[in-house]
């Protein structure tokens, strides 16, 4: 019975999610903007490009060791959405962030996102294809390459939001030794265990999916967050009900 409850609840949640996203998108557009929970990581994100302009060093942005088609495709897309949010500001201000990847599909994705603002304005001359760098083809190789990059390029900040494993500890430690401002986010518990004590700002789990809403504050994005929250509350309710049922009705 508990299993049945869980299955039905999950089915309803999956079906309801797109409808709720649509509804709340309209609500946000027309009536109100919700009060988002404060996440210091996004506040720190907003100022990084400005700092890079003033200091004259690039800002390093990493979208993880995953790629498109991998098990962490969506996490990689979430990290790439941050690049997308910052790309317009980078093109407008002339900042030149360095985006590092470890996968070829992520390379293509990040390059496309960095190129968007320049193609929109019809002037591709300001775009640097090597602004997106493959620093390694495997997680540990990528970590070593990133450590070397941080040491020699001396970016003003280190932003790592995406799919990471325990190798992120090497990168974080290198950043700490250089005194970099570090913003990190991951869905992997092993990576979070290393990120939480060392990074200045940490995004845990699904918080990285909220990056576009926090950075751009578009009504449809805020509606999506609201819909996710509603479904989450519903699932919590379903889990509690299932747990109670399983406890009192083990059969």
């Amino acid at each position: 019975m508990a299993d049945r409850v869980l299955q039905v609840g999950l089915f309803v949640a999956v079906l309801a999610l797109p409808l709720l996203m649509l509804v709340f998108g309209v609500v946000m557009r027309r009536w109100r903007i919700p009060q988002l929970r404060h996440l210091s990581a996004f506040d720190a994100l907003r100022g990084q490009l400005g700092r890079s302009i003033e200091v004259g060093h690039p800002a390093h942005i990493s979208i993880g060791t995953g790629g498109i088609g991998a098990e962490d495709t969506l996490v990689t897309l979430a990290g790439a959405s941050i690049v997308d949010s910052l790309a317009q500001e980078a093109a407008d201000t002339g900042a030149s962030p360095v985006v590092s990847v470890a996968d070829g599909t992520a390379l293509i994705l990040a390059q496309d996102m960095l190129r968007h603002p320049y193609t929109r304005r019809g002037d591709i001359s300001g775009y640097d294809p090597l602004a997106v760098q493959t620093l390694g083809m495997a997680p540990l190789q990528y970590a070593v390459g990133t450590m070397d990059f941080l040491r020699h390029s001396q970016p003003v900040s280190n932003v790592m939001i995406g799919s990471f494993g325990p190798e992120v500890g090497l990168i974080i430690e290198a950043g700490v030794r250089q005194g970099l401002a570090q913003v990190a986010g991951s869905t992997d518990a092993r990576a979070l265990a290393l990120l939480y004590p060392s990074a200045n700002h940490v995004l845990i789990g699904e918080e990285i999916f909220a990056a576009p809403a926090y950075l751009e504050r578009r009504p449809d994005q805020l509606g999506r967050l609201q819909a996710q929250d509603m479904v989450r509350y519903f699932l919590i309710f379903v889990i509690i009900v299932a747990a109670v049922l399983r406890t009192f009705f083990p059969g």
Partner: protein
Amino acid sequence: MNYCPSCGTANRDGSRFCNECGHKLPSKTGIICPMCSHMNPADNMYCDNCKARLVPLGPTGQPAAPAGASPATASSAAPIKKPLSLPTKPAEEPAPEEPDTPPESVAQPEPEADEPNWLVRLRAAAPKPSEKRPTVEPPAPQPSSSQEIPDWMKPAEGEVPDWFQRLAEPASAQPSEPESVQPSEPEPQPEEEGLPDWMAQLRPAPAAPSASQTEEEQAPDWLTTFDTTPPASSGAASEEELPNWLKGMSAEPEAPAPAPPPPPSMPPPAAPVAEEEPDWLANLRREPLETSEPAGETPDWLMAVEEPPAAEAPAAQPAPAEEVPDWLMGLRGPSQPEPAAEPAEQVPDWLIGAREQPEAPPAEHPEAEAPDWLSRLSGAPEAPPEQAEAPEWLMGVAPAVGGEPPAPATQTPAEEVPGWLRDFRIAEPTPEAPAPSPATPVSAFVGERAETEEQAEVPDWLSEAARPAPPAAAPEAPAEPVEVPAWLRDLGPLPAAAAAPHPEETPFGEAPAAVPGEFPEWLRGQQPGQPTPAFADESGRTLTPEATTGLEAATIPSWLQALKPPEVPGEAVAAPHEAFVETEGILAGLASVLPAAEVMGRAQGAPASRNVGIPAADLARAGVFGELLARGALAPTVIKPRQVAGSRVGDVVVRVLIALLLLVVAVLPNSLGFASSFIQLGEVDAGLYKPAADQVAALSEGQHVLMVFDYDAFQALEMRPIAEAFLSHLAQRGARATLVSLNPTGLALADTVLSRLPEEVALDVVLAAPIYYPGQAIGAQRALLDNPADLLVVLSGSPDSVRLWIEQVSAAGLHTPIVAGISAGALPQAQPYVQSGQVRGAVAGMVGGLAYQRALDPDLDAGDSGLDRVVRTESVYVSQLAFALILIAGMIVSLITGSRQAG
């Protein structure tokens, strides 16, 4: 310094973002771009936003010194600007009266070295005095007219353009020109003795019949003051520019433009002898404007109105006059020298139209649409009395017209009438009204009352203003009363002589109430530039400026005097625009097109006073800064590695000791072979391997297994026992396996595992060489479809890979059982999948792998190789234990030391 509003960090000037937190900084100082209004740092040469030039080119064509340059370089680059001096008391004695002849410079101005090009061109294009230009004769100069202007209005010596100087000269210096539309020469009016000369000069010239006047006798004087000869180059253009109402007043006789009737409460523009023109209004038509004026009271518009009437209509002047406003051009009379003449296209339309209809009978009603006030300007009696709107304050100062008292209307509250205007109330026409003065530009504007009774629609007040004083020489001036517009009537009549005093604050105390047309005594004899003499108020007491209450003569405080820029004696100010020719952009080749460029490029804020001494240290710093700017962008800030806390010698020693300890612990048992002597391994939980082993055990011979190597190289040592155990077990069961990997390194890892197995085992189990499937989840799909298997063995170092294969198996619609070999670190995250049954069994970590191996082969630890394996295994365990102990000890020490530091 620019302080960040978010974190308070001090940032250098010109920074757009905070160096600490990246917050956008408000711009406090800098140069506002004249093109896009973007605030730029003070040391920018070009706008950051639109790339427009911020720092103008200097006299030599080189960029002027930027804001950060030293004063020496700045002074050498930028021309010296001498601002106007502060007002001082004018001289006591009046300046000698100048004859009423046009200054020669008007006719043939000599281009001065410091004159801008546009001025030179204007002057060159100005019509010569010998040219027949129907302009208003300059009014008779006041005997006591003064050439002096207040010091505060005096520009620095040598800086005054000639045209400006000419403006200050009385009309007597203006050329007398044969006029066709000019009234007679102004005759000194006996009743004008009390008027200031400069005001008396403004009286319109009495209408004098002349040749062209005959032709234009129907035209109001104000219209005839302009050039009646249609300009050759601009006639057509001017005609096109005429509004409809003014086109009716063109040169064609069949379409006459009516002269506007004068305003009802203003003196008639013509010179009706019977009616007295208010002195102040009459004076408006006379003498050229003098720049001197009683201190503080004469408004600018009045000053402009008082321009010499000799100013020619600018229609015939092709020279461009960028700097002279239209209103000034339009207000100039015919005798006005032409320094700032405008091309025909810049003349107001109504003025051009008026100019072009010298023969237009002003009395005819305009067929075209013309405003009533304009039609009444000519004083046409048949002009329908149209009531135009006028501000109430003007109503209060406008007397009745034509002898008719204005309709009693609500007296304009005193507070609504400007004080300065109240002083200039038009006096009621008196028999002693002086003869109409020559037409002035104002008369040209307001229009004299035409000799004929037909007038265009001119506001009464305007026609009244143009109406000269009723002299005997103007017999033809119609004496018919002019319709007073309602708005003017509403202002109410003003008592002729016993006007209620309007006490108001003046710099000289309470000014005695003035009735329209009467000037206070103190003003009558006042000459521009002269100090205000003592005067008697109504009560007869004598007042002097010093004796007024509350106010003292202005004195410049010493601190302000100190800031007064030094005047360069005897030097003509270098014309900043003379040699300036724009070299780039769309204005390339043009000279002096933007004379205000130097002002536009200046930084905002109060400029530094040059009188303030600049310390040598500041100069030196400015020079250094200039050098840095000259070199280009400042070197980027180098982020130095943070000094890691604890990087002291003691910490280094501790680290070395810990490393040695770990080494000893890891190596020693392996070397000495005595680990198992005193270390007893704990019982391995069977759950770490047994469920997976059971799945493999359930395979029959010949069944196919898909084995995935999906871990990284640094996990190889941990995963190798697990992989070896699975392959060995598969060999025991007779199953065949296909090795695949979703990572390129997986193939090499698989090979390393195979190389450690006995060759026969490897050959029996493995069907083919390992295969690499790119694309992660897509590759997994492909691998599942290409290699149908009875069991899926996933060797993964992360739970994500396990999850991926679970998903792809479900997506492919397969029901292949899955077992996992997973690292110890990933076990907690993979445990739910095991518990849910999606993964039938999992072998976790090296411990589980070794246990699995021992379960397969109880004799595995026997023999030398077995012992070697055991020792190595135990050394690993001991190292692990030692590491754990060191970790715990380190945490305790950190806790204690942290407490001490916090305490």
